[in-house]
């Protein structure tokens, strides 16, 4: 597996995201309704979109893994979910801050998007206990992929259900995200979204590279020490943790 990314990606991320945030504060006009507080929108919404898209990407990767049986796709699916969960934490915290500023409460149960996101987040959090509850590596990978596919199907369904549960016409403070967004805000939003997407991809590659180098290190250690120790067969069980057990 060669995860050596094109060197340009991290820099592109830095430039785009910085430019996006600069646009937020120096270019985008203040929202007529909400004023300055609406600036959280450019952080919160791209984060949420990237996290959700990341979950869907993980589902697709899991499907590829199940169909082809190549475990590198399981690793990718795992890392996609992992990074999306990290972004998800940021989504929930920034969402809570926005809710506090707009409505005076840290969490608002009748804002469907926020509630759906919380449910999806909770579901994906169970991915870790599931993985570590299964000993056999090959089975673990397969079951984790089944989970990723199921959860991927769950994401849109959950959003439908929660949105429908919204009673009548809730005064939507997020109305700015509808068609009424002025062009300057649109540009800012799109740049932020692109930056966040690039950030997601950068972090995923970073994480993949870290995991793969740790695995390589473990292999190297086994190759080097194996000569001294000389028992190949008996080490099979702990081999799976070879990269970490010796540290």
């Amino acid at each position, binding site marked *: 597996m060669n995860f050596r990314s094109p060197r340009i990606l991290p820099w592109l991320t830095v430039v785009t995201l910085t430019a996006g945030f600069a646009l937020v504060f120096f270019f985008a006009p203040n929202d007529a309704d909400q004023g300055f507080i609406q600036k959280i929108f450019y952080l919160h919404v791209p984060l949420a979109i990237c996290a959700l898209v990341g979950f869907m990407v993980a589902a697709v990767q899991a499907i590829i893994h199940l169909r082809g049986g190549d475990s590198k796709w399981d690793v990718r699916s795992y890392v996609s979910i992992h990074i999306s969960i990290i972004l998800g934490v940021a989504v929930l915290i920034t969402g809570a801050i926005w809710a506090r500023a707009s409505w005076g409460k840290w969490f608002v149960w009748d804002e469907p998007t926020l509630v759906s996101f919380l449910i999806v987040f909770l579901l994906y959090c169970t991915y870790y206990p599931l993985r570590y509850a299964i000993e056999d590596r090959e089975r673990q990978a*397969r079951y984790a992929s089944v989970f990723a*596919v199921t959860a991927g199907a769950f994401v849109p369904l959950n959003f439908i259900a929660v949105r429908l549960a919204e009673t009548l016409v809730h005064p939507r403070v997020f109305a700015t995200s509808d068609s009424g967004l002025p062009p300057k805000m649109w540009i800012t939003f799109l740049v932020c979204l692109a930056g966040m997407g690039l950030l997601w991809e950068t972090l995923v590659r970073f994480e993949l590279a870290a995991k793969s180098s740790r695995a390589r290190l473990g292999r190297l250690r086994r190759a080097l020490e194996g000569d001294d120790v000389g028992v190949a067969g008996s080490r099979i069980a702990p081999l799976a943790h070879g990269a970490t057990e010796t540290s």
Partner: protein
Amino acid sequence: MNAFRTILGKDLRTELRTLESIPAMALFAATTFVLFRFGLDRTSLEGSLAAGVLLATVLFAAILAINRVFVSEREQGGFDVVRLAPVDGTALFAAKVCVLAIYLVVLELIAVPLFALLFLDSAAGLAPLALVLAMVDLGLATIGALVSSIAINSRARDLIAPLLLLPLLVPVMIAAAGAAEPLLAAGGPSYDGFGKWIAVLALYDVVFGLVGYAVYDFLLED
């Protein structure tokens, strides 16, 4: 089809002989009603409270059954038999969904009248409620069979199954509560948004039925 009938028949016969799951579920439901009576300090319920109490009880009782539905397979090597025999996973999955759905229907035949007796002023809403509950059962059974097969091969399986199930069941709860609330309203049943919620439940059942059908084989191979 043959394998499906065999597995279904075997499970139902086992249940009839040992009475392992359904009585426990019914007892659990009855006790939960009593707990709610004191927890909420209400002697009669209507509307959203009634829907919530009933559905939460059914849901938690379902978890009992879901935890048990593959236990015999695991303890008596049923999985290996399925793997060895030329039976595809779909038959096993379908059979388990049916077993769970039947358990749930039987449970509700006991629990819903009991609930009506204990808490409801009028039983007028119960007929359309049956449709809602049938859809809920199907969703619970589908996702339950899927999650249970995942959990049964893991270490802390009693823990993993509810952990995975509860978030997955949130849409079912939303839709079922949305449909049941007007049915159990104080002023007699109304059908406010009934079709919409039934459609959501149907969508849920279909989607996870398809997901289960698509991925189930991967849970069996070894």
